[in-house]
């Protein structure tokens, strides 16, 4: 038996402990350094992993002979069939969509609302099921004008997430369905606002109190993003014993089948904590300062109150004097009876 096992002489424990400590300290130092200077670590990572990233992208997207051969012809045929099917479906509803779009634009112009912004077409390099994090990777970066906070759309107005990290030639998109991601949504039908929270796996949910009439197929809009339709309610969880009900929301296109998205070059207005704090403080200070009209009306009320108080005091004095004279009379009568 011993002949078939590979044996190694040496004290394993001693050498292990030395390297163990060194690597532990080094790694924790690097992680702390990364948390303090995330942009620096990001730049270094982009540079170091650039060859692998380029090779991977070339392998996945290139039309050269070798990658196409490896990716196999059947995948391309399936994509072609899928696109043909999509074209056939979309052609039948194009007229209605055009008419509604035109009407929407007119109404927006009348309401002086923001119109469509400049878009940039991007190819999806990797979807959440193929990445370590629940993110979408696209092949456009800061070189193309993509910035952190740019909304990402599928189709014309279906917003699926916002750019959360950018490098020169690629960017990562944080999806509204990412677990823990919360945003305010408006549900068309019951016409209520609710918090849309990501559940992961391409699903988000809205929590509403019992009694709000939500139904499958109702449209969910994200008011924080211009013309941001998110998707529709696909399922409802409603237990009569619970005080709330949940509507599960999904975008019209499966996130795992996304191949192209468009990135709006206008970033969502992001404010940091200090800006929000300043705004709150200025609002509180503004509340403390009363308007001139309010001050004058308050002073009028105060004067009226003072006048009525002085009248009451005078009447009280008269009543007290009358009561005093009455008691004097009563005391006098009692003294006479005693005598």
């Amino acid at each position, binding site marked *: 038996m011993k002949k078939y*096992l*590979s*044996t*190694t*002489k*040496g*004290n*394993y*424990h001693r050498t*292990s402990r030395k*390297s*163990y400590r060194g*690597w*532990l300290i080094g*790694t*924790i130092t*690097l*992680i702390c350094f*990364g*948390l303090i200077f*995330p942009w620096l*670590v*990001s*730049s*270094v*990572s*982009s540079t*170091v*992993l650039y060859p*692998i*990233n380029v*090779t*991977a992208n070339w*392998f*996945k997207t290139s039309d050269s002979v070798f990658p196409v051969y490896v990716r196999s012809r059947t995948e391309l045929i399936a994509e072609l069939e899928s696109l043909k099917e999509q074209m056939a479906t979309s052609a039948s509803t194009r007229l209605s969509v055009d008419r509604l779009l035109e009407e929407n634009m007119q109404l927006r112009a009348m309401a002086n609302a923001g119109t469509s912004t400049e878009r940039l077409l991007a190819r999806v390099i*990797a979807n959440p099921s*193929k*990445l*370590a*994090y629940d*993110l979408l990777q696209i092949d456009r970066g800061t070189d193309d004008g993509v910035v952190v906070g740019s909304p990402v759309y599928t189709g014309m107005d279906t917003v699926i997430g916002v750019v*959360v*990290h950018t*490098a020169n030639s690629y960017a*990562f998109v944080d999806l509204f369905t990412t677990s823990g991601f919360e945003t305010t949504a408006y549900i068309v039908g019951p016409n209520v606002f609710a918090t849309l929270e990501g559940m992961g796996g391409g699903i988000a949910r809205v929590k509403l109190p019992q009694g709000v009439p939500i139904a499958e197929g109702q449209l969910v809009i994200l008011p924080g993003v211009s013309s941001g339709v998110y998707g529709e309610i696909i399922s409802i969880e409603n237990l009569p014993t619970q005080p709330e009900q949940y509507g599960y929301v999904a975008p019209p296109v499966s996130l795992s089948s996304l191949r192209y998205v468009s990135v709006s070059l206008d970033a969502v207005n992001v404010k940091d904590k200090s800006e929000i704090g300043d705004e709150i403080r200025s609002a509180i200070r503004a509340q403390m300062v009363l308007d001139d009209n309010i001050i004058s009306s308050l002073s009028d009320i105060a004067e009226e109150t003072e006048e009525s108080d002085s009248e009451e005091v005078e009447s009280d004095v008269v009543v007290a004097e009358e009561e005093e004279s009455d008691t004097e009379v009563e005391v006098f009568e009692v003294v006479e009876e005693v005598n």
Partner: protein
Amino acid sequence: MTRILLFLLITWGMLTQFFWFAFAVTVWYVFRYAGYELMVLAILIDGYYGAFFSVPLLSIATLIFVLSVNVMKPSLLMYTEKNEMVS
């Protein structure tokens, strides 16, 4: 040479769709070699994904995983009477 190739394979797997394959290779790699360099790789990948702007979960998980395996490894190996390690 094998170690370098495996390391590149894990890096490749983490940046492409072969995530679970990379995980399986990583488990074997950490057990076979010490695999401390994987912690640096995890930090680089977290930097690549921009995870240091929030919480670098991959780095922390790799740190815990690699150290756990290396702490447990002596218990999982067999030793002869002459203090020879059998892998």
